[in-house]
């Protein structure tokens, strides 16, 4: 009997050690492979007749008051940002900031699906800074394989922990004064929540898309997506509140050659899309990757 127990205990220990070793060696490399262009893919070449989609994000109803964050667990945060508040619903004059707007689907006038274009990866990095124990900006977008740079401007250390579903996850400490961390996301994913496990109030969202047709609404709620080939598109606007996976609203727009299509969205109480007559509202999509921790 005792011999059997000993054998089981030794086996369990060995298996645990093997599992631990495997976990340590593959934690940085696991995840799905990068996206590869399909047979119908073709390089996007601007023709000079590109149009624009612009609009504003309204917030219906009384916005929730920003909540004060208790930074006493890390005095450096209190010193750097004594009036730290939540940023999840940033409303000014009825307009909502930090909404990620992107071309979700559609077809250009020449019949090419927007997803079939391949785009040159921008050489400049998109930076996410940690400043005053907040992520700046709160919401941002990058193209697939574009450099995603994380800097720490705070007098304290942070850890950066994105929780993607389609891309490999990672968790890395960045002490104050440390060199920037540079990563890329190999697959399109809207949106990847990023958090700091040392300061649990710190949250950011990164939209990874295959093309450059995305924007984030500014403080005045407006956004502009430039350089779109003429065609019919589905524009999606995503905001982090409204459900465990955030809320996404979509509408159809037609972009004429050198034209501007309007795409106004509304979030908040009894929110409805407004703008172009005949625009179709689609139900909020379930994005299971949002809010997954």
């Amino acid at each position, binding site marked *: 009997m*005792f011999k059997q*127990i000993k054998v089981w*205990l030794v086996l*369990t*220990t060995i298996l*645990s*050690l093997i*599992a*631990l070793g495997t*976990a*340590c060696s593959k*934690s940085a490399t696991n995840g799905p492979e990068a996206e590869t262009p399909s047979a119908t893919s073709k390089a996007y070449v601007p023709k000079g007749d590109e149009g624009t989609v612009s609009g504003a994000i309204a917030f219906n109803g009384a916005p929730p008051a920003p*909540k*004060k*964050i*208790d930074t006493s*667990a*890390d*005095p*450096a*945060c209190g010193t750097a940002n004594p009036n730290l*508040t*939540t940023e999840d619903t940033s409303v000014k004059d009825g307009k909502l900031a930090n909404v990620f707007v992107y071309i979700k689907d559609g077809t250009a006038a020449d019949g090419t699906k927007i997803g079939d274009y391949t785009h040159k990866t921008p050489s400049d990095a998109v930076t996410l800074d940690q400043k005053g124990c907040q992520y700046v900006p709160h919401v941002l977008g990058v193209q697939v394989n574009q450099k995603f740079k994380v800097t720490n401007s705070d007098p*304290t*250390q942070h*850890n950066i*922990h994105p929780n993607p579903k389609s891309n490999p*996850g990672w*968790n*890395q*400490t960045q*002490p104050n004064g440390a060199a920037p961390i540079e990563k890329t996301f190999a697959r399109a994913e809207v949106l990847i929540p990023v958090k700091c*496990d*040392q*300061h*649990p*109030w710190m949250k950011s969202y990164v939209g990874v898309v295959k093309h450059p047709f995305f924007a984030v609404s500014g403080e005045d709620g407006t956004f502009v997506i430039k350089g779109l080939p003429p065609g019919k598109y589905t524009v999606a606007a995503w905001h982090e509140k409204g459900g*465990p996976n955030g809320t996404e609203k979509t509408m159809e727009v037609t972009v004429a050659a050198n034209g501007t299509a309007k795409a106004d969205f509304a979030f908040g109480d009894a929110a409805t899309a407004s703008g172009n007559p005949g625009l179709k509202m689609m139900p909020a999509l379930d994005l299971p990757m949002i*809010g997954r*921790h």
Partner: protein
Amino acid sequence: MNRGLHWFACIVAGATFFLIVAGALVTSNAAGLATPDWPLTEGAFLPKVEFLGIRTGVNMVGNLFWEHGHRMVATTVGLLTIGLVIYLFARERRQWIRRLGLIALFGVIAQGLLGGLTVKLMLPLWVSTAHATLAQLFFCTVVSLAVFTSASWMREQPTMEEQGGLSLRYLCVAASSAILVQLIIGATLRHSATWDQHLPTDLLLTHVGGAIVVTLLVGSAAWLLLRRYPGEAFLTRPAKVALSLLALQLLLGVAAYITRLGSPNDPQPLNPMIGITVAHVACGAMVFATTIVLTLRSFKVLRASEAAVRLSAQARSLEYKL
């Protein structure tokens, strides 16, 4: 009987209880991944010190305080367990107690490895749940060691025949098993959603169902013990403690649910939610430990009734004839 050995086992059990509290604080503060390193935190173990202008150690601010603090308590418990095993092999004559000490040692090693896995694999549900479950099993093992080395256990106790149709010893075993299953469900529930997410309804309902089963089993076992053996403090004392803790645990469960319900709208994990959920975990461990003590003691002093023995012998003989 070695008084020192018993007290040392009690100290290890106390330290393990504190470790369970520290672990629950890590979960409630969502601090499990405050550092991606393991076993050290950023290459260090001791908290930050500044000596002669040299700064070294872990800067225990923010959630690093909870995560690294948990590791420091865990290391202490690991060392105490090694000490307990050495003490057992030096002073304890009963071979099976020494073996139980070795099981505790393997348990604490496996628990440390599981803790490392949770960090390295970034909190997969099954590893986190296994880590929380093994914590309770280890606690139960060291509590048992404290019971077996106690004076009241070593003293010759008069045995009593089981009264009534229902065997209280096996009812206690059923209650302990139900608590263990309930602890596993609770651990799964806690690790299924962080403070900013709503708890999964199916698991929550399962946990409520488990609470009903545990209440019925622990309640009936303790109540029957108190009714049948009112003068036996050896049995009635843990029965009374188990009943009191069970009542407290039910209240804490309701309070934990209420505070957890609102936490996804909070800007960060807030103290009422943290305090009550941690107290719920801690009280759950105490209910488990007390029921284990009750079970062990019931097997120590209760024996099957004559009628049950006869019935069992008849059944065996019938089986043989067939």
